[in-house]
């Protein structure tokens, strides 16, 4: 009998495995907890509901009409599409976000693995230095970054923005990938080394296939962060045509007046891709799977 548990016996939370040693019977507790959970869910979904409802009503019924609007009209959606050239900025966002996610994935898996499994001098020093990325407030760096981009001639370009995003986000993803790689046994690496594989081959053929959960994590949240980012995009890109979606949507929030139906219609449309990416990642998950077990 193997002492080490196979992956099918030790899956993370979402598969809801049967735990034979922990059956509980608390009918009262169960309904109380269900109540709490329902309350939490209601609270968390409330803003989305408000967003959608507001996009369906006329502007002057938002604040003095009933919660469920009497007249529903989808007119705000085509209007939002054309008024702010939604299609083009959506494409910009898609391009910038995909490029950023890709960049962060490549950098963080390589770096995370290096810190987790390789040994070389000054390793910890470099690691701590990279973590410094997490320590400065973003607003303090706007002007220095702007000047840096200007020096490199990358101002007003989407490439410059992607580089900014990647360099700012890679260290944390790297931190996560490192923690993840550290749970993989050292024997894998050493066995491959003894078989004569070069370091990069080990990384590519042995380790990377096992990193799927970590990769999925990085994809979901890098996508989300980049898709929603506003401050840097707004500052670095001057040409309105190259702006991503979020800054353009926010121009609908005026100092004295806001076109709420238009804004919420635009926001609802912009949320769709994020939810899609999330659901797609969920669908990849297969219960009780033996994660790419090493085929010797």
């Amino acid at each position, binding site marked *: 009998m193997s002492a*080490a548990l196979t992956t099918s016996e030790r899956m993370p939370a979402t598969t809801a495995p049967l735990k034979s040693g922990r059956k509980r019977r608390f009918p009262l507790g169960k309904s109380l907890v269900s109540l709490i959970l329902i309350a939490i869910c209601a609270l968390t979904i409330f803003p989305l509901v408000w967003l959608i409802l507001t996009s369906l009503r006329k502007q002057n019924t938002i*604040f003095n009409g009933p919660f469920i609007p009497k007249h529903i009209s989808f007119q705000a959606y085509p209007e939002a599409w054309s008024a702010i050239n939604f299609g083009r900025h959506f494409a910009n966002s898609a391009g910038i976000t995909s490029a950023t996610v890709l960049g962060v994935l490549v950098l963080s898996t390589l770096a995370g693995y290096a810190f987790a499994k390789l040994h070389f001098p000054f390793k910890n020093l470099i690691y701590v230095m990279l973590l410094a990325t997490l320590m400065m407030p973003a607003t303090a760096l706007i002007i220095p970054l702007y000047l840096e981009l200007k020096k490199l001639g990358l101002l007003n370009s989407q490439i410059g923005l992607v580089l900014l995003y990647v360099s700012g986000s890679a260290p944390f993803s790297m931190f996560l990938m490192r923690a993840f790689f550290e749970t993989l046994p050292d024997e894998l690496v050493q066995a491959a080394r003894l078989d004569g594989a070069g370091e990069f081959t080990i990384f590519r053929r042995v380790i990377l296939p096992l990193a799927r959960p970590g990769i999925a994590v990085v994809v979901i949240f890098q996508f989300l962060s980049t898709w929603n980012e506003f401050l840097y995009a707004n500052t670095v890109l001057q040409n309105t045509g190259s702006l991503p979606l979020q800054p353009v949507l926010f121009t609908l929030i005026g100092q004295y007046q806001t076109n709420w139906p238009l804004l919420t219609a635009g926001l609802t449309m912009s949320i769709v891709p994020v939810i899609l990416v999330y659901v797609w990642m969920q669908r990849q998950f297969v219960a009780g799977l033996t994660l790419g077990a090493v085929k010797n």
Partner: protein
Amino acid sequence: MVPNITLTTGSRVDRVRLARQERRRARSSHRRLHYSEWVAGYTFLLPTVVLFALFVGGPILFAIGLSFTNWGGFGAATFTGSANYARMLHDPVAQRAFVVTILYAVAMTVLQTVIPLVVAVLVDFVWNGLSVVVRTILFIPAIVSFVVSGVLWNLIYDPNMGTLNQMLKAIGLGQLAQPWLSNPATVLPSILVVSLWGALGLNMLIFFAGIQGVDPTLYEAAQVDGASRVQQFFYITIPGLRVITAIVVALNLMNGFKVFDIIYVMTGGGPSHASDVFGTYLYTLAFGSTSGSIPQLGYASAFSVVVMVLCGFAVLFQVGLARRANR
């Protein structure tokens, strides 16, 4: 949480062979320098480090340098030594912001660690899992960007027509109704609620996974020994969550020290600096439309350096905790 994977090679013979190779290798490792490993290590890190140097390290150094000048945002900067830091010590707004920053960061950390943990425990001990639908719903506050949630919660907190006060009046607690965001006594708790709302679902999922990741055989053993559910919770679950909790605490602390978006969108630092933290104060000093019409980028940078130092402490704290947990 990172899934705990232990892979098997599937055969006993293989494992024995590996173990023997391991011992052989361990013996020889002291005598050879793994240059190829060094090269690989540095090469893998190269892109990250280069990007870091260009787009993070350089700008951070620039910001630190700025904090020793009184740059007005255009033209040449004049070196003023530690004048900005001295000014910080005498500036009543800065002093207040320091207190609020620490208070907010600590409160936020406690709330956003304890409450999700408690709820996750409740959910785990009574249910065995969360359905996909529930998990997706809990994810939603993360999708909505801070400007949107700030606007929505401003509407809820509106003293005259907001949902919260109207609800209070409807259930007879009308005397509790007040201007939540403009009463200095209630503004911070009100903002903390919004922050918790955004983080609850996610932190709860983290803890939930961590709880599920605890070895079930430990519970079985404890049950055999006659331990009650409560005892099992305190002696098995909590210790098992130590590492995750340390990470969550450190991250929350850093985010708390750096906080800007949510406070600025909801109150702009008001009323009268009651909710002003370092993040918002430095923003108004540099770009502010409602405070001082001269851009004071040198002074603003000094605040960012202080925030960085505070975050440094948070990181050290977490590293120290992690070391203790691993011993």
